[in-house]
């Protein structure tokens, strides 16, 4: 039996490798015997999955709560939620979105004020590239004309925290390269994208 026959393959994509959800099932050991057998049969022939599993096991041991790594578990929680709760959540989100859009200016001003205080204390410059490819520096959106000026802004040699939510890796890479060429100080990148 392989993943295809067992209908637990990564259905969204044409690959026989287990999906994130399959890895969770395996690591949590709550799955059926058939599943475990087919998962391990796949591991025998797939070095990539075998090594990824080793990484996940290490992450499990080093996790604060000895839990399945959160980047794997997050999606499962959403998948397990029943439809009613899902739709209720979507509805609430929509309401929230309407509220945010209505009060956008008010909220962004407040947000900027609070994080600026924090940034002042921690002595970093906080760059952000959103999903919509908009770029912000210290909570202020930057127009494309002002982007070059913003790059030169780091006169105080503050450390740079760089949050990337955009999926346009080319854009992100080119910005990072420009930053690196202008600064010889550490640049810390991170992302909250749902990839993990």
């Amino acid at each position, binding site marked *: 039996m392989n993943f295809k026959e067992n209908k637990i393959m990564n259905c969204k994509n044409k690959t026989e490798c287990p999906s994130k959800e399959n890895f969770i099932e395996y690591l949590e050991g709550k799955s059926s015997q058939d599943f475990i057998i087919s998962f391990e049969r796949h591991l025998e022939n797939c*070095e990539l999955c075998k090594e*990824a599993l080793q990484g996940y096991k290490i992450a499990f041991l080093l996790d604060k709560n000895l839990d399945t790594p959160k980047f794997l578990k997050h999606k499962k929680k959403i998948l397990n939620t029943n439809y009613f709760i899902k739709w209720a959540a979507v509805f609430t989100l929509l309401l929230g979105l309407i509220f945010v859009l209505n009060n956008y200016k008010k909220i962004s001003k407040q947000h900027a004020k609070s994080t600026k205080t924090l940034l002042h204390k921690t002595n970093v410059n906080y760059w952000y590239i959103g999903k919509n490819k908009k770029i912000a520096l210290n909570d202020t959106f930057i127009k494309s004309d002002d982007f070059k000026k913003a790059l030169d802004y780091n006169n105080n040699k503050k450390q740079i925290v760089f949050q990337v939510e955009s999926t346009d*890796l080319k854009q992100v890479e080119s910005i990072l390269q420009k930053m690196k060429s202008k600064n010889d100080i550490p640049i810390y990148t991170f992302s909250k994208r749902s990839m993990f």
Partner: protein
Amino acid sequence: MTIFLDKSKAYREKSDEELLFFYKKKKDTEIIGVFYERYHHLVFGVCLKYFKNTNEANEALFDIYSSLYESLKKYDVKDFKKWILTVARNHCLSELKRKSKETEFNPYSKNSPKYFMESDEEISLKIATEQKIDALQLALKKLKSEQKQCIELFFLEDKTYAEIVEITAFELKKVKSYIQNGKRNLQNLLNNEF
């Protein structure tokens, strides 16, 4: 927008070999996106194995996929899975090597506040990890022998369920339950510890 989605959907239907062929031909960056969807969780797992923390693994994953745009044009890749595994391994190893060199030959003087800030962060992370490992080892000793054996084999010696069944002669059901209960007990022990 519709065209964009259709194109992406069409690529998802293709096998790795077909995608590699199309990328060579069309240089369409959408294809890299499809590879990302398929394998990012696996490449991330590989990076975790080397870096042992999610932040660095995250950065490495980003770097690896960013480099694909050019490297897939350069090399004649036949088996994407095997190739990306090699790329990921090499990237992680070279990053680890680079980082260890940076710590050895830090260009900043010891008087620089930056020097201290970075070292402190690194040291505290290492100490936290070491403390965690020490606490785990202590907690493991307190588990029932079957649970201890199964947890050690599964997580520390990286055995599969089937291999554990073979080594211990327990039934698969039992192995699963020892691991689950062992995990729960370990967690309780560690929570009491801190």
